[in-house]
Protein backbone atom coordinates (compact mmCIF):
# COMPACT_ATOMS: atom_id res chain seq x y z
CA UNK A 1 0.00 0.00 0.00
CA UNK A 2 2.85 2.33 0.64
CA UNK A 3 3.67 1.86 -3.03
CA UNK A 4 0.62 3.69 -4.13
CA UNK A 5 1.01 7.27 -5.23
CA UNK A 6 -0.65 9.81 -3.02
CA UNK A 7 -3.51 10.47 -5.31
CA UNK A 8 -4.76 6.89 -5.47
CA UNK A 9 -7.26 5.87 -2.91
CA UNK A 10 -6.94 2.22 -2.10
CA UNK A 11 -10.58 1.32 -2.04
CA UNK A 12 -12.28 -1.44 -3.95
CA UNK A 13 -15.28 0.73 -4.43
CA UNK A 14 -15.20 3.53 -6.93
CA UNK A 15 -15.02 6.92 -5.33
CA UNK A 16 -17.89 8.16 -7.34
CA UNK A 17 -19.83 7.63 -10.49
CA UNK A 18 -19.36 10.45 -12.91
CA UNK A 19 -21.55 10.28 -15.96
CA UNK A 20 -22.04 6.64 -15.13
CA UNK A 21 -18.34 5.85 -15.16
CA UNK A 22 -16.73 4.66 -11.98
CA UNK A 23 -14.27 7.10 -10.58
CA UNK A 24 -11.59 5.22 -8.70
CA UNK A 25 -8.69 7.52 -8.49
CA UNK A 26 -8.29 10.94 -7.17
CA UNK A 27 -6.86 12.61 -10.24
CA UNK A 28 -4.07 15.15 -10.17
CA UNK A 29 -5.17 18.48 -8.87
CA UNK A 30 -5.41 19.90 -12.33
CA UNK A 31 -7.86 17.32 -13.49
CA UNK A 32 -10.26 17.28 -10.63
CA UNK A 33 -13.65 18.12 -11.97
CA UNK A 34 -14.31 20.75 -9.38
CA UNK A 35 -17.83 19.74 -8.52
CA UNK A 36 -17.64 16.00 -8.91
CA UNK A 37 -16.10 15.02 -5.62
CA UNK A 38 -18.02 17.57 -3.76
CA UNK A 39 -21.24 16.25 -5.17
CA UNK A 40 -20.18 12.75 -4.27
CA UNK A 41 -19.28 13.63 -0.72
CA UNK A 42 -22.36 15.71 -0.32
CA UNK A 43 -24.48 12.69 -0.96
CA UNK A 44 -23.57 11.49 2.49
CA UNK A 45 -25.87 12.62 5.21
CA UNK A 46 -23.17 12.60 7.84
CA UNK A 47 -20.59 10.30 9.38
CA UNK A 48 -23.03 7.48 10.14
CA UNK A 49 -24.17 7.48 6.56
CA UNK A 50 -20.61 7.38 5.30
CA UNK A 51 -19.76 4.52 7.65
CA UNK A 52 -22.84 2.58 6.63
CA UNK A 53 -21.81 3.03 3.02
CA UNK A 54 -18.33 1.70 3.68
CA UNK A 55 -19.72 -1.31 5.52
CA UNK A 56 -22.55 -2.16 3.14
CA UNK A 57 -20.56 -1.78 -0.03
CA UNK A 58 -18.00 -4.26 1.10
CA UNK A 59 -20.55 -6.70 2.40
CA UNK A 60 -19.18 -6.43 5.87
CA UNK A 61 -21.24 -7.51 8.82
CA UNK A 62 -22.44 -4.50 10.69
CA UNK A 63 -22.49 -6.47 13.93
CA UNK A 64 -18.90 -7.51 13.59
CA UNK A 65 -17.26 -4.49 12.07
CA UNK A 66 -13.59 -4.95 11.28
CA UNK A 67 -12.76 -1.74 13.06
CA UNK A 68 -9.24 -1.61 11.75
CA UNK A 69 -10.21 -1.61 8.08
CA UNK A 70 -13.15 0.66 8.50
CA UNK A 71 -11.28 3.18 10.58
CA UNK A 72 -8.55 3.33 8.01
CA UNK A 73 -10.96 3.81 5.14
CA UNK A 74 -12.99 6.33 7.03
CA UNK A 75 -9.93 8.39 7.79
CA UNK A 76 -8.89 8.25 4.17
CA UNK A 77 -12.16 9.83 3.19
CA UNK A 78 -11.78 12.49 5.83
CA UNK A 79 -8.30 13.31 4.61
CA UNK A 80 -9.56 13.46 1.09
CA UNK A 81 -12.18 15.97 2.12
CA UNK A 82 -9.60 17.98 3.96
CA UNK A 83 -7.19 17.94 1.07
CA UNK A 84 -9.91 19.34 -1.07
CA UNK A 85 -10.36 21.99 1.58
CA UNK A 86 -14.00 21.10 1.77
CA UNK A 87 -15.93 22.42 4.62
CA UNK A 88 -16.01 19.42 6.82
CA UNK A 89 -18.72 19.12 9.41
CA UNK A 90 -17.25 18.67 12.86
CA UNK A 91 -19.28 15.50 13.25
CA UNK A 92 -17.01 13.73 10.79
CA UNK A 93 -13.98 14.46 12.92
CA UNK A 94 -15.73 13.39 16.09
CA UNK A 95 -16.52 10.09 14.44
CA UNK A 96 -12.93 9.66 13.33
CA UNK A 97 -11.82 10.16 16.92
CA UNK A 98 -14.40 7.69 18.13
CA UNK A 99 -13.27 5.07 15.63
CA UNK A 100 -9.67 5.57 16.61
CA UNK A 101 -10.60 5.14 20.22
CA UNK A 102 -12.49 1.93 19.58
CA UNK A 103 -9.58 0.67 17.54
CA UNK A 104 -7.17 1.29 20.36
CA UNK A 105 -9.43 -0.37 22.89
CA UNK A 106 -9.79 -3.41 20.68
CA UNK A 107 -6.04 -3.69 20.49
CA UNK A 108 -5.63 -3.74 24.23
CA UNK A 109 -5.38 -7.15 25.85
CA UNK A 110 -8.82 -8.18 26.99
CA UNK A 111 -9.55 -8.33 30.64
CA UNK A 112 -12.44 -10.52 31.53
CA UNK A 113 -13.76 -8.29 34.32
CA UNK A 114 -13.85 -5.24 32.11
CA UNK A 115 -15.57 -7.25 29.44
CA UNK A 116 -18.48 -7.86 31.74
CA UNK A 117 -18.90 -4.22 32.51
CA UNK A 118 -18.06 -2.50 29.30
CA UNK A 119 -18.92 -5.09 26.73
CA UNK A 120 -17.65 -4.84 23.22
CA UNK A 121 -16.26 -1.35 22.62
CA UNK A 122 -18.02 -1.42 19.30
CA UNK A 123 -21.49 -1.87 20.73
CA UNK A 124 -22.40 1.80 21.01
CA UNK A 125 -21.28 2.42 17.45
CA UNK A 126 -23.22 -0.58 16.23
CA UNK A 127 -26.32 0.58 18.07
CA UNK A 128 -26.09 4.00 16.46
CA UNK A 129 -25.46 2.60 13.01
CA UNK A 130 -28.45 0.33 13.31
CA UNK A 131 -30.65 3.07 14.66
CA UNK A 132 -29.62 5.35 11.83
CA UNK A 133 -30.25 2.67 9.27
CA UNK A 134 -33.76 2.11 10.55
CA UNK A 135 -34.62 5.74 10.01
CA UNK A 136 -32.85 5.91 6.72
CA UNK A 137 -35.14 3.08 5.57
CA UNK A 138 -38.14 4.75 7.16
CA UNK A 139 -37.36 7.91 5.21
CA UNK A 140 -37.27 5.89 2.00
CA UNK A 141 -40.58 4.37 3.00
CA UNK A 142 -42.14 7.79 3.47
CA UNK A 143 -40.75 8.95 0.16
CA UNK A 144 -42.46 6.02 -1.54
CA UNK A 145 -45.87 6.71 -0.05
CA UNK A 146 -48.26 8.04 -2.65
CA UNK A 147 -48.52 11.73 -2.06
CA UNK A 148 -50.48 14.71 -3.27
CA UNK A 149 -49.20 16.63 -6.28
CA UNK A 150 -46.90 13.79 -7.24
CA UNK A 151 -49.01 10.63 -7.26
CA UNK A 152 -52.43 12.00 -6.52
CA UNK A 153 -54.25 15.17 -7.34
CA UNK A 154 -57.35 16.51 -5.71
CA UNK A 155 -60.43 16.00 -7.86
CA UNK A 156 -62.54 19.11 -7.60
CA UNK A 157 -65.54 20.63 -9.29
CA UNK A 158 -66.22 24.33 -9.55
CA UNK A 159 -68.97 25.81 -7.44
CA UNK A 160 -70.62 28.78 -9.09
CA UNK A 161 -72.13 30.91 -6.37
CA UNK A 162 -74.44 33.85 -6.83
CA UNK A 163 -74.45 35.71 -3.59
CA UNK A 164 -72.44 33.78 -1.13
CA UNK A 165 -68.85 34.78 -1.51
CA UNK A 166 -66.08 32.88 0.11
CA UNK A 167 -64.79 35.06 2.93
CA UNK A 168 -61.15 35.95 2.56
CA UNK A 169 -58.62 36.08 5.36
CA UNK A 170 -57.62 39.47 6.69
CA UNK A 171 -54.01 40.48 6.70
CA UNK A 172 -52.35 43.28 8.64
CA UNK A 173 -49.54 45.20 7.06
CA UNK A 174 -47.26 44.57 10.01
CA UNK A 175 -47.64 40.84 9.46
CA UNK A 176 -46.37 41.34 5.92
CA UNK A 177 -43.50 43.50 7.13
CA UNK A 178 -42.53 41.02 9.81
CA UNK A 179 -42.57 38.23 7.27
CA UNK A 180 -40.36 40.25 5.00
CA UNK A 181 -37.96 41.09 7.73
CA UNK A 182 -37.63 37.44 8.43
CA UNK A 183 -36.84 36.78 4.79
CA UNK A 184 -34.22 39.50 4.83
CA UNK A 185 -32.55 38.02 7.85
CA UNK A 186 -32.40 34.65 6.18
CA UNK A 187 -31.26 36.11 2.90
CA UNK A 188 -28.39 37.88 4.64
CA UNK A 189 -27.06 34.50 5.60
CA UNK A 190 -27.26 33.20 2.07
CA UNK A 191 -24.55 34.42 -0.17
CA UNK A 192 -26.20 34.72 -3.53
CA UNK A 193 -29.18 36.79 -2.75
CA UNK A 194 -30.23 39.54 -5.03
CA UNK A 195 -31.91 42.18 -3.04
CA UNK A 196 -32.09 45.37 -4.97
CA UNK A 197 -32.26 48.61 -3.12
CA UNK A 198 -33.89 50.94 -5.60
CA UNK A 199 -36.25 53.37 -3.93
CA UNK A 200 -39.72 51.91 -3.90
CA UNK A 201 -41.13 54.72 -5.94
CA UNK A 202 -38.88 53.63 -8.80
CA UNK A 203 -39.86 49.99 -8.37
CA UNK A 204 -43.50 50.93 -8.38
CA UNK A 205 -43.03 52.94 -11.54
CA UNK A 206 -41.23 50.03 -13.17
CA UNK A 207 -44.28 47.84 -12.56
CA UNK A 208 -46.62 50.48 -13.87
CA UNK A 209 -44.59 50.98 -17.04
CA UNK A 210 -44.38 47.26 -17.70
CA UNK A 211 -48.09 46.85 -17.08
CA UNK A 212 -48.90 49.61 -19.52
CA UNK A 213 -46.59 48.21 -22.20
CA UNK A 214 -48.01 44.77 -21.61
CA UNK A 215 -51.55 45.94 -22.21
CA UNK A 216 -50.54 48.08 -25.18
CA UNK A 217 -50.48 45.26 -27.74
CA UNK A 218 -46.93 45.96 -28.74
CA UNK A 219 -47.47 49.67 -29.34
CA UNK A 220 -44.79 52.19 -28.60
CA UNK A 221 -45.35 54.72 -25.86
CA UNK A 222 -43.89 58.16 -25.54
CA UNK A 223 -41.83 58.88 -22.46
CA UNK A 224 -44.31 61.47 -21.18
CA UNK A 225 -47.15 58.96 -21.27
CA UNK A 226 -45.77 57.29 -18.16
CA UNK A 227 -46.25 60.24 -15.85
CA UNK A 228 -48.64 63.10 -15.43
CA UNK A 229 -47.92 66.77 -15.36
CA UNK A 230 -49.10 66.99 -11.78
CA UNK A 231 -46.24 64.77 -10.75
CA UNK A 232 -43.88 67.45 -11.87
CA UNK A 233 -40.15 67.10 -12.09
CA UNK A 234 -40.05 64.32 -9.50
CA UNK A 235 -42.44 62.25 -11.61
CA UNK A 236 -40.23 62.66 -14.68
CA UNK A 237 -37.11 61.70 -12.75
CA UNK A 238 -38.68 58.61 -11.19
CA UNK A 239 -40.03 57.56 -14.57
CA UNK A 240 -36.68 58.08 -16.19
CA UNK A 241 -34.89 56.01 -13.53
CA UNK A 242 -37.49 53.28 -13.85
CA UNK A 243 -37.03 53.20 -17.63
CA UNK A 244 -33.27 52.95 -17.31
CA UNK A 245 -33.60 50.14 -14.81
CA UNK A 246 -36.02 48.23 -17.04
CA UNK A 247 -33.80 48.81 -20.03
CA UNK A 248 -30.83 47.48 -18.09
CA UNK A 249 -32.78 44.36 -17.24
CA UNK A 250 -33.65 43.96 -20.90
CA UNK A 251 -37.36 44.34 -20.32
CA UNK A 252 -37.88 47.13 -22.84
CA UNK A 253 -36.10 49.26 -25.39
CA UNK A 254 -35.75 52.99 -25.52
CA UNK A 255 -35.58 54.60 -28.95
CA UNK A 256 -35.08 58.14 -30.09
CA UNK A 257 -35.29 59.13 -33.73
CA UNK A 258 -32.91 62.07 -33.55
CA UNK A 259 -31.30 64.10 -30.78
CA UNK A 260 -33.74 66.09 -28.67
CA UNK A 261 -36.76 64.47 -30.29
CA UNK A 262 -39.41 62.43 -28.48
CA UNK A 263 -38.16 59.40 -26.55
CA UNK A 264 -40.13 56.28 -27.35
CA UNK A 265 -40.44 53.18 -25.26
CA UNK A 266 -40.78 49.92 -27.07
CA UNK A 267 -41.83 46.62 -25.52
CA UNK A 268 -39.65 43.62 -26.27
CA UNK A 269 -41.69 41.11 -28.11
CA UNK A 270 -40.52 37.63 -28.68
CA UNK A 271 -40.59 36.53 -32.27
Amino acid sequence: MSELPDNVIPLQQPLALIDGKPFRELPDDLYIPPDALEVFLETFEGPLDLLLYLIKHQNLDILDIPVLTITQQYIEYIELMQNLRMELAAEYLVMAAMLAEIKSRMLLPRQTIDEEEEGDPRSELIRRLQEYERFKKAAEGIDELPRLYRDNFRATAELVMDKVSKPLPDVELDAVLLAFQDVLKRAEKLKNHHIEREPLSVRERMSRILGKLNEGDGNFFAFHQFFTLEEGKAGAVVTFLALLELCKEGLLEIVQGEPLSEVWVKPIIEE
Partner: protein
Amino acid sequence: MSDQVKNILEASLFAATEPLSIVELQNLFMLEDRPDKHRVRDCLLALQEEYEEKPIELIEVASGYRFQVKTKYASWVSRLWEEKPVKYGRALLETLAIIAYQQPATRGDIEEIRGVAVSTNTIRTLMERDWVRVVGHKEVPGRPALYATTVGFLDYFNLQTLADLPPLANLMDLDMREVGEIQLELGEQTPIENQHHEESSTARTSN
Protein backbone atom coordinates in the same frame (compact mmCIF):
# COMPACT_ATOMS: atom_id res chain seq x y z
CA MET B 1 -56.96 1.80 -24.81
CA SER B 2 -60.35 3.22 -25.69
CA ASP B 3 -61.36 3.87 -22.12
CA GLN B 4 -57.87 4.96 -21.19
CA VAL B 5 -58.13 8.17 -23.19
CA LYS B 6 -61.48 8.98 -21.66
CA ASN B 7 -60.19 8.19 -18.17
CA ILE B 8 -57.18 10.43 -18.60
CA LEU B 9 -59.38 13.27 -19.80
CA GLU B 10 -61.77 12.77 -16.92
CA ALA B 11 -58.99 12.66 -14.33
CA SER B 12 -57.38 15.79 -15.76
CA LEU B 13 -60.60 17.77 -15.88
CA PHE B 14 -61.11 16.98 -12.21
CA ALA B 15 -57.55 17.84 -11.28
CA ALA B 16 -57.34 21.09 -13.23
CA THR B 17 -58.06 24.34 -11.48
CA GLU B 18 -59.02 26.11 -14.69
CA PRO B 19 -61.18 24.99 -17.62
CA LEU B 20 -59.25 22.92 -20.16
CA SER B 21 -59.53 23.47 -23.89
CA ILE B 22 -59.53 20.63 -26.38
CA VAL B 23 -55.98 21.48 -27.37
CA GLU B 24 -54.84 21.46 -23.75
CA LEU B 25 -56.48 18.09 -23.31
CA GLN B 26 -54.72 16.75 -26.39
CA ASN B 27 -51.40 17.97 -25.05
CA LEU B 28 -51.70 15.71 -22.03
CA PHE B 29 -50.66 12.90 -24.34
CA MET B 30 -47.29 12.21 -25.86
CA LEU B 31 -47.18 12.94 -29.55
CA GLU B 32 -47.42 9.29 -30.59
CA ASP B 33 -50.54 8.59 -28.51
CA ARG B 34 -52.19 11.93 -29.01
CA PRO B 35 -55.92 11.59 -29.81
CA ASP B 36 -57.32 13.87 -32.50
CA LYS B 37 -59.87 16.58 -31.79
CA HIS B 38 -62.80 14.39 -32.77
CA ARG B 39 -61.70 11.68 -30.45
CA VAL B 40 -61.42 14.13 -27.56
CA ARG B 41 -64.79 15.63 -28.35
CA ASP B 42 -66.40 12.18 -28.44
CA CYS B 43 -64.97 11.38 -25.03
CA LEU B 44 -66.21 14.66 -23.62
CA LEU B 45 -69.69 13.94 -24.95
CA ALA B 46 -69.61 10.48 -23.40
CA LEU B 47 -68.56 12.00 -20.09
CA GLN B 48 -71.31 14.58 -20.22
CA GLU B 49 -73.81 11.77 -20.59
CA GLU B 50 -72.27 9.75 -17.80
CA TYR B 51 -72.64 12.63 -15.37
CA GLU B 52 -76.19 13.51 -16.37
CA GLU B 53 -77.67 11.84 -13.30
CA LYS B 54 -74.96 13.04 -10.95
CA PRO B 55 -74.85 16.17 -8.81
CA ILE B 56 -71.98 17.54 -10.89
CA GLU B 57 -71.79 18.21 -14.61
CA LEU B 58 -69.20 18.68 -17.30
CA ILE B 59 -69.86 21.99 -19.01
CA GLU B 60 -68.21 24.03 -21.71
CA VAL B 61 -67.29 27.62 -20.88
CA ALA B 62 -65.39 30.17 -22.94
CA SER B 63 -61.93 28.82 -22.25
CA GLY B 64 -62.76 25.14 -22.26
CA TYR B 65 -64.39 22.37 -20.28
CA ARG B 66 -64.76 22.00 -16.55
CA PHE B 67 -66.67 20.02 -13.99
CA GLN B 68 -68.96 22.03 -11.81
CA VAL B 69 -71.57 21.48 -9.14
CA LYS B 70 -75.10 21.57 -10.48
CA THR B 71 -76.88 24.75 -9.51
CA LYS B 72 -79.56 23.00 -7.52
CA TYR B 73 -76.99 21.79 -4.99
CA ALA B 74 -75.28 25.14 -4.62
CA SER B 75 -77.23 26.22 -1.57
CA TRP B 76 -76.03 23.21 0.44
CA VAL B 77 -72.53 23.23 -0.88
CA SER B 78 -72.05 26.91 -0.23
CA ARG B 79 -72.39 26.23 3.50
CA LEU B 80 -68.87 24.91 3.30
CA TRP B 81 -67.71 28.51 3.20
CA GLU B 82 -69.90 29.87 5.89
CA GLU B 83 -67.31 29.28 8.49
CA LYS B 84 -64.34 31.46 9.17
CA PRO B 85 -61.79 32.00 6.47
CA VAL B 86 -58.48 30.27 6.86
CA LYS B 87 -55.43 32.27 7.79
CA TYR B 88 -52.77 32.93 5.21
CA GLY B 89 -49.52 31.15 5.80
CA ARG B 90 -46.07 32.55 6.21
CA ALA B 91 -45.15 31.60 2.64
CA LEU B 92 -47.88 33.81 1.23
CA LEU B 93 -46.96 36.83 3.33
CA GLU B 94 -43.30 36.51 2.48
CA THR B 95 -44.03 36.15 -1.21
CA LEU B 96 -46.26 39.20 -1.12
CA ALA B 97 -43.61 41.23 0.70
CA ILE B 98 -40.92 40.25 -1.78
CA ILE B 99 -43.10 41.17 -4.73
CA ALA B 100 -43.89 44.51 -3.08
CA TYR B 101 -40.27 45.42 -2.48
CA GLN B 102 -38.57 43.81 -5.45
CA GLN B 103 -41.12 44.31 -8.19
CA PRO B 104 -41.24 43.47 -10.96
CA ALA B 105 -40.08 40.04 -9.79
CA THR B 106 -40.18 36.60 -11.33
CA ARG B 107 -40.92 33.47 -9.41
CA GLY B 108 -37.24 32.65 -9.62
CA ASP B 109 -36.36 35.96 -7.96
CA ILE B 110 -38.72 35.16 -5.12
CA GLU B 111 -37.37 31.66 -4.69
CA GLU B 112 -33.85 32.94 -4.67
CA ILE B 113 -34.54 35.34 -1.85
CA ARG B 114 -36.69 32.97 0.19
CA GLY B 115 -34.44 29.99 -0.37
CA VAL B 116 -37.48 27.74 -0.87
CA ALA B 117 -39.78 26.98 -3.76
CA VAL B 118 -42.87 29.14 -4.21
CA SER B 119 -46.02 27.18 -4.84
CA THR B 120 -48.26 28.02 -7.77
CA ASN B 121 -51.07 28.14 -5.31
CA THR B 122 -49.52 30.99 -3.37
CA ILE B 123 -49.14 33.11 -6.46
CA ARG B 124 -52.61 32.23 -7.59
CA THR B 125 -54.13 33.22 -4.27
CA LEU B 126 -52.33 36.57 -4.41
CA MET B 127 -53.61 37.15 -7.92
CA GLU B 128 -57.15 36.11 -7.06
CA ARG B 129 -57.04 38.51 -4.18
CA ASP B 130 -56.05 41.19 -6.69
CA TRP B 131 -52.94 42.11 -4.75
CA VAL B 132 -50.55 40.94 -7.41
CA ARG B 133 -50.66 40.86 -11.19
CA VAL B 134 -48.51 39.92 -14.13
CA VAL B 135 -47.00 43.00 -15.73
CA GLY B 136 -44.93 41.30 -18.38
CA HIS B 137 -42.53 38.50 -19.11
CA LYS B 138 -38.80 38.37 -18.75
CA GLU B 139 -37.06 37.69 -22.03
CA VAL B 140 -35.09 34.69 -20.86
CA PRO B 141 -35.74 31.02 -21.61
CA GLY B 142 -39.17 30.05 -20.36
CA ARG B 143 -40.31 33.69 -20.44
CA PRO B 144 -41.22 33.74 -16.74
CA ALA B 145 -43.97 36.10 -15.68
CA LEU B 146 -43.02 39.31 -13.90
CA TYR B 147 -45.19 40.01 -10.89
CA ALA B 148 -45.98 43.37 -9.39
CA THR B 149 -48.39 44.68 -6.79
CA THR B 150 -51.68 46.25 -7.83
CA VAL B 151 -53.68 49.29 -6.87
CA GLY B 152 -55.85 46.82 -4.96
CA PHE B 153 -52.84 45.99 -2.80
CA LEU B 154 -52.25 49.65 -1.98
CA ASP B 155 -55.92 50.15 -1.23
CA TYR B 156 -56.17 47.15 1.03
CA PHE B 157 -53.20 48.20 3.10
CA ASN B 158 -54.16 51.86 3.08
CA LEU B 159 -51.08 52.97 1.23
CA GLN B 160 -51.05 55.79 -1.24
CA THR B 161 -47.95 54.65 -3.00
CA LEU B 162 -45.39 51.94 -2.45
CA ALA B 163 -43.06 54.59 -1.11
CA ASP B 164 -45.23 54.61 2.01
CA LEU B 165 -43.75 51.25 2.92
CA PRO B 166 -40.71 51.48 5.18
CA PRO B 167 -37.55 51.62 3.07
CA LEU B 168 -35.72 48.35 2.71
CA ALA B 169 -32.61 49.66 4.43
CA ASN B 170 -34.55 50.52 7.56
CA LEU B 171 -36.20 47.18 7.60
CA MET B 172 -32.90 45.40 7.33
CA ASP B 173 -31.41 47.10 10.35
CA LEU B 174 -34.45 46.86 12.49
CA ASP B 175 -35.06 44.47 15.19
CA MET B 176 -38.44 42.86 15.28
CA ARG B 177 -39.82 44.97 18.11
CA GLU B 178 -39.33 48.15 16.21
CA VAL B 179 -41.59 47.16 13.39
CA GLY B 180 -44.53 48.07 15.56
CA GLU B 181 -43.23 51.61 15.66
CA ILE B 182 -42.97 51.90 11.94
CA GLN B 183 -46.49 50.80 11.91
CA LEU B 184 -47.40 53.75 14.07
CA GLU B 185 -45.58 56.21 11.89
CA LEU B 186 -46.90 54.71 8.77
CA GLY B 187 -50.36 54.09 9.27
CA GLU B 188 -53.11 54.62 11.46
CA GLN B 189 -54.93 51.62 10.17
CA THR B 190 -53.49 48.80 12.21
CA PRO B 191 -54.06 48.52 15.89
CA ILE B 192 -50.87 47.44 17.55
CA GLU B 193 -52.56 44.65 19.45
CA ASN B 194 -52.53 42.62 16.34
CA GLN B 195 -48.90 42.09 16.52
CA HIS B 196 -49.27 40.98 20.08
CA HIS B 197 -52.00 38.69 19.07
CA GLU B 198 -49.81 37.02 16.60
CA GLU B 199 -47.05 36.58 19.05
CA SER B 200 -49.24 35.22 21.76
CA SER B 201 -50.98 32.84 19.43
CA THR B 202 -47.63 31.46 18.34
CA ALA B 203 -46.70 31.00 21.91
CA ARG B 204 -49.95 29.25 22.60
CA THR B 205 -49.52 26.77 19.82
CA SER B 206 -46.16 25.80 20.99
CA ASN B 207 -47.28 24.90 24.47
